[in-house]
């Protein structure tokens, strides 16, 4: 049995489907990347799995159970969602904000236990936020806020972590730091991750499996090496590329071929 199984799901907005008849499953452990052009339905798929959108057709099973029948709090104890867009949060301190992630585990009136405090402190230090704990989240930089949001998701102690473009707006240092952390969590803590990425090279470097969406349907899926090929990428993105390998990790690496560059090269020859 898989951790999550998406079966013939059609979903969208106001009766207009954006994704159609999507079927795939996420095995236990590992990182699964979702890529595809703008408007391909990545975020719609993400919001359907995160139970913001209800499938118009088909169903999604979590460990064999239909997620539509799960209580919200129960679902929140198993699946943490880190959405793409965030407005400026209210002026909580970092520690308060991260602590909100423990709410699914505690009743309305039960105060945080020593266990909760331990988990919160552990994740603050894991993300290098211990020194920030008393800062206001509304005063943080984009990279700091991203780590705080990730920490909130991690203290939920989920089995499945859904992330929509967690590295957008981050510089390369922070991109690598966030993804390295996600990678080590999936390896060491057995966390399963579904992640939307725009950067094909990051998808190639970090994901165990890649799912390509195009026009609301699954175009192809599989290991990065078999999916991130010149033919597939040119077909999906309508952009000329060459695919090589990272000289250190041997993971697929995509080279883009800017038009201006080729023209200049041609003129120089």
């Amino acid at each position, binding site marked *: 049995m898989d951790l999550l199984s998406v079966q013939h799901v059609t979903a969208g907005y106001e009766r207009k489907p954006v994704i159609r008849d999507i079927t795939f499953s996420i095995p236990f452990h590992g990182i699964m990347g979702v890529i595809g052009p703008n408007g391909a339905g990545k975020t719609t798929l993400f919001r359907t799995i995160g139970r913001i959108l209800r499938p118009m057709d088909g169903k999604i099973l979590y460990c064999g159970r239909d997620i539509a029948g799960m209580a919200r709090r129960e679902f929140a104890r198993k699946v943490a969602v880190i959405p793409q867009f965030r407005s400026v949060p209210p*002026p909580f301190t970092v520690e308060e904000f991260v602590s*909100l992630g423990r*709410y*699914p585990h505690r009743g*309305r009136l039960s105060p945080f236990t020593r266990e909760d405090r331990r988990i919160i402190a552990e994740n603050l230090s894991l993300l290098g936020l211990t020194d920030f704990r008393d800062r*206001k989240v509304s005063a943080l930089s984009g990279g700091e806020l991203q780590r705080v949001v990730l920490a909130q998701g991690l203290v939920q102690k989920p089995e499945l972590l859904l992330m929509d473009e967690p590295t957008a707006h981050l510089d390369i240092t922070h991109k690598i730091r966030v993804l390295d952390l996600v990678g080590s969590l999936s390896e060491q803590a057995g966390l399963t991750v579904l992640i939307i990425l725009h950067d094909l090279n990051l998808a190639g470097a970090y994901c165990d499996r890649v799912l390509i969406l195009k026009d609301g349907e699954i175009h192809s899926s599989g290991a990065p090496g078999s999916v991130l090929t010149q033919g597939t990428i040119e077909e999906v993105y309508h952009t000329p590329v060459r695919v090589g390998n990272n000289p250190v990790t041997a993971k697929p690496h995509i080279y883009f071929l800017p038009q201006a560059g080729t023209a200049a090269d041609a003129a120089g020859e």
Partner: protein
Amino acid sequence: MNRGLVFLILLAFLLAAVALGLFTGGMQLPPGEIARALFRPGSDGIAGTLVWELRLPRIFMAGMVGSALAVCGVVFQAILRNPLAEPYTLGVSGGGSLGAVIAILLGISGLPMVLICFAGCCLSIGVVLGAASLKGFSNSMLILAGIIMSFLFSSVVMFIFAVASSREVHSSILWLMGSLSAPPAGSVKMLLMILPVMLSLLFFARDLNLLSLGDEPSYHLGLDAKRTKTYLLLGASLITGVCVALSGIIAFIGLVVPHAVRGMTGADHHSLVPCSMLAGGGFLILSDTLSQVIIRPLELPVGVITGMVGGLFFVIYLLKARPAEVS
């Protein structure tokens, strides 16, 4: 600042305001007499009547209305995720003023006027929440519906002003400014009826924390945002409606007190909710006492005082606060 300390300071502020309200007012009596009457309930004489029939009920009312408006302000700011939200944002006051003006026009006063005014509040609550429920209680829909209802009701009020006599207009305007000077019989009972709803808000601190992140993040943290929002909006609107019906439109408390308290406690509603209750109650008791003594023996509408003090405070607060903390 330490939350326990903030709570104690605000509690002391409330008690000090109560004491001040008890010993000063429109009529001056020696403090000894007031103290003696205080410890002998039911005693005759001017002091007994003043303390037990005038000042204490009025202090109770000011305290309740002040803390109710402040805590409703906290609820609306959290749910609507808007620093400018206040108890009147959803148009409750618009319906209330229309009801009150109609009552004044028909020569109705006392408890019947309160009930007509409350009916007006309920009408606007019903329309706004009804319209918003069609759109899944989205914040923009709530705010827009509230603003539209406010405009609609105030236009009708303007229309009535245009055709009413100047005396009726004057008493309507005084009512609109908000006053605690002539609470009709039964006010205390009405306030006691909303007390359980107010106290229930103390148990929603966790939900308010989640809702202040936005609907979708609160879903992801396991909250049934729609159901919780419905209860909180309905509860806070009804509390506001009772306050408006009893005391008119008392300005600024529901906007300023939550911001002031947030500056001291931070955004966590576990301390923000109770501390706002204490601060709002103390602030309105203090303002009401001031309104009785500033132009003694006449009285100012208390809304004038809260508006001026609140407005002044808000300007200072905005200038002092770092931009990131204004929200």
